[in-house]
Structure formats: C-alpha cells, structure tokens
C-alpha cells in the first residue's frame, strides 16, 4: 500500500486559453515537509486549490489520502488543514466563533471543542485575542487566527500558502518553529511560498514551479556537483570561539570536505543523507568543538531558485 498522502498526477489546469498547470506530477509521503517555490503566476495557488478541494483539474488527477478531494470531500479532507490565499472573515465574527465552527465541522464533540479551539489558538499565540471580532484584529493577528483555525483538530496534513505573510519577525519565527515541531511529529506539509527562508527552515524537500511546469524536485540541502553529475549535501556550521579548518576536518573525518568561511564558520560538503549528517554533527560535538548551529547555506536555495525559475522572476 502506498504511503503517499498527497498525489498530483499528470495534472493540467486551464483557465480560458491559459494553462495554469501543465502536466504537473509529484507526491508527498506521510510526514514529509515540502516547499513549493515559484514566482507569481507559476501555478502554486492553483495546485493548492486542487489539493484543498476548491477546484478540479482540467486533466489528470489529484488525490488526498488516496481520495478525490472534490468527490470524496468529507473523507479526503477529514484530517487536512488548508490555508489558501487570504480568506476574509466577516468583521463581526470572533476568533473563538471561527475556530469553534471549524472544530464543530471537524466533528469534535462539544465537550472537547473549547480545548481544541484553545490548542489551535495556542499554536499561534492568539489565545488572548480569541474573544475579539476579526474587524478589530490587525492583519498579522487575523492571519495568525486563520492559521490557528487550520490547526484545530490536529490535522495530519497541512496545505499552507504564504503562512508567514504579514507576520512580525517573532511570530514568523514561532510559526516556523511550530511547523518544524509538527513535521517532526509526523505532519505532512506542503508549503507554498515566495520566501526561500521559510522553505529553508521548515522543509526537507523543495519543488520548483515555473509557468505551470514543475522544473525541480529535490532535497532542500542538496548541492549538485556539476563536476561529477552526482549530488552532495552542504552544511554550514557556526561556532562560538574561533576554530581551524584542520580541527573541523579532523573531527569530521574522511569523506567530509571542509572549508572555513571566516574564523567561526565552516562549510562542509559530503555525500550521503540524514545519517551521515547526524554522524558529522555528533563527531564535531564529541571533539569538543563549540558548535552553535548547523544549517544548509542560505544562499544555496536562492541560487537554485534563480537557476530553475529565472533571475528576473525571483522574489
């Protein structure tokens, strides 16, 4: 039995004489966090609409939990939270009203609804604003309340479009943190965004879309080695006190190529996956090197975005 939770199979979507999507195909396995990058008009929103049951493909098929999200809406979307574009909410409704309605529709018993509403609001730090009408909320707070609504009922799949749009830096950080935590707990996430950092920090895999066509499907922390045609991982390590390239290379061992970018930062290239990365980090810590953080280089994903999507369209 396939563990694919979301499947987009040879999908075309036509609006008038314009093809918004052209033969797009990809799938997400359970627990995957996948970024969906592309410029305005690339077809990201259209894809999310199809997966969220808001629209039907012109050709091809879309499956959520193995079901058609339009024909089998109730079953397919039972454990799906979706935030597509920016829905408006009547100004007289409160956050508690909206989250309570979502909890009700998700079949949460009335006795458990207040807890479910609170959990959704807590996830976005908007508990104190639950009683306020939407008309009195700032753009960022309203956005967080909507995100809280998508989390009501502990969905197993999240379809999010520009979730950090309009959020202040702290809220953006909290949301990314929350999404990472949920992802570690097994949530399947498709994150459509213009912000490369969102994908960099939350996702393990990235899809690039250009003019309705999928032009890339690869790990976030992958660097293609044009010399060998193979693929390698790149990790940027930041240290507290100064380190030397030799000390990092000595700790990492053979198979890891270390270059120092200043006294407190090193880039490590290696072949392999999560296991090799975990072994590298463990070795560095064991060696007593003052490791502060490890992440894929910020510039790498931006560079790949430029390569696949095009500089003039990059945002």
């Amino acid at each position, binding site marked *: 039995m396939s563990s694919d939770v979301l499947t987009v199979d040879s999908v075309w979507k036509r609006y008038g004489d314009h093809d918004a999507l052209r033969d797009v195909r990809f799938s997400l396995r359970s627990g995957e966090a996948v970024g969906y990058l592309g410029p305005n008009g690339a077809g990201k929103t259209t894809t999310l*609409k199809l997966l*969220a*049951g*808001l*629209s*039907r493909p012109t050709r091809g098929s879309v499956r959520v939990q193995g079901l058609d999200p339009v024909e089998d*809406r*109730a*079953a*397919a*979307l*039972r454990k*799906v*939270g*979706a*935030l*597509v*574009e*920016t*829905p*408006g*909410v*009547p100004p*007289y*409704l*409160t956050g508690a*009203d909206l989250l309570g*309605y*979502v909890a*009700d*529709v*998700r*079949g949460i018993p009335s006795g458990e609804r207040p807890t479910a509403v609170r959990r959704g609001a807590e996830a976005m730090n908007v508990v104190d604003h639950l009683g306020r*009408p939407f008309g009195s909320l700032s753009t960022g707070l309203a956005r967080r309340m*909507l995100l809280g*609504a998508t989390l009501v009922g502990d969905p197993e799949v999240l*379809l999010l479009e520009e979730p950090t749009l309009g959020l202040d830096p702290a809220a953006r950080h909290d949301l990314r943190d929350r999404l990472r935590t949920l992802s570690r707990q097994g949530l399947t996430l498709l994150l459509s965004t213009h912000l490369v950092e969102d994908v960099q920090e939350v996702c393990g895999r990235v899809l690039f879309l250009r003019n309705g066509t999928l032009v890339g499907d690869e790990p976030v922390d992958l660097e293609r080695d044009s010399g060998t045609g193979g693929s390698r991982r790149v990790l940027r390590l930041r240290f507290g006190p100064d380190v030397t390239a030799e000390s990092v290379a000595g700790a990492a061992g053979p198979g890891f190529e270390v270059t120092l970018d200043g006294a407190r930062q090193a880039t490590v290239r290696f072949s392999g996956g999560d296991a090799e990365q975990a072994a590298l980090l463990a070795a560095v810590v064991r060696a007593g090197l003052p490791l502060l953080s490890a992440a894929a280089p910020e510039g790498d994903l931006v560079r790949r975005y430029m390569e696949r999507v095009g500089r003039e369209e990059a945002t």
Partner: protein
Amino acid sequence: MTGGVDALIRNARWEITRLHRSRRVWLLLIPVVAGPIGSGIADVYLRVPSSGTAEVLGLLITAGLAALVVLDLVALAVGEDLALRTHYLTFTLPQPRASALAGRLGVVIGATLLVYVAGAIAVAGLANTLVSTSPTAAAPILVPGHLEVGLVGLLVFLGGITAAAGVVTRSASQALVAGVLAGVVAAGIGSTFLIEGRLTWLFPLALATAGLIGLVVCLIQYGRIDV
C-alpha cells in the same frame, strides 16, 4: 466523516451564531412587531370598512416587511462569504458544501416565515379587535386566510431567487438587488391578475415553486463553485 445531515445541523448553528454576532437577528423582530403595530395604527386611524379589509391591509404590511428581511438575510447567507472570500477557508472543511448552505438558508428562510406567520396572527387578532365591520361594507378584495397563505409563496419566491442570484453574482448586494427586482415583478403580475379578476391560488403556488427551484439551483451551483 461529516454527513449531509450533520453538515446541515452544524451550519444551522453557525448561521444562528452569525445572526447573533452581526445583530441581524434583530431584523426578525420587524415583521412580528412593526407589522402588527403599523396595521393597528391603520386600523384605528383609517376608515377601514371591515375587519377583513383591515386584515388584508395588515397582512400586506407584515409580508412587505418580512420580504425585506428575507431578502437581506438570504443575500448575506449566500453572498457574504463569497464576496469576502471566506469560502477559501470554509470550502476546505470536510463537509458537503450544498448541505452546509442548506443549513444556513434553512435558518434564515425558516425564521423569516415563522415571524411572518406570528405577525399575521397578531394582525388578524388586532383587525378583529379594533375594526368593526359595517353592514354595508363591501367584501375585502382578497380572502384574508387565502392571502395569508399566498404570501408565504411570495416569501419563498423571494428567498429562492435571491439565493440563486447570490451564487451567480457571488455578491450579497447584487443578490439583494435581484431579489428586489423579482419582488417588483411578482407584485406587478399579481396586481394585474387581481385587477383582471384572474388571481387564483395558482399564482402563489407558482411563486413558491419558482422559489424552490431557485433554492435547488443555488444549492447545486454552490456545490460546484470552482474557486
């Protein structure tokens, strides 16, 4: 899994919440309070020749007010979310869209009909209390009991046409305009039939049927909206 009936009940509750929060719920007092009051004033200060004629007058006032209420509430129940794009969120929830809307429309149309009937009963009571029938009085132009039932057909017609217009235009304000125009046309045709002496029970029945068809069209199209 949320079935159709569950969705209907849950969204009926949702509509009650919305009516309460938006304070639109107070509109429902208009037919049952203002209708009989207006009718009573007319009964006292106009030289109404019979209680039957007074009742006809009061029913027209009450139904006119109920018509405005049903137009407003139905237009907003269908068109408000579509205009604000709230459906980008609600359409992603695991429930049949048509059942969800049916629950909301059931509340607003049902509540309006209920307050109209309550207003009509009050109007009849006031007419019989405040107006004494002159022995020389002509019979009312319509049988009050028939008119009371017939006006239900008009209200269903207005609700159905407004609902269908709401889905087509995706706008509460445009649905409201469509409903008003439909009401004007219905009133014009009804008046013509009355003057020509051809007004029978078939007319309100036709109005109610058209309204029900409008509601069915609305629900089917709502379920098919491609965002």
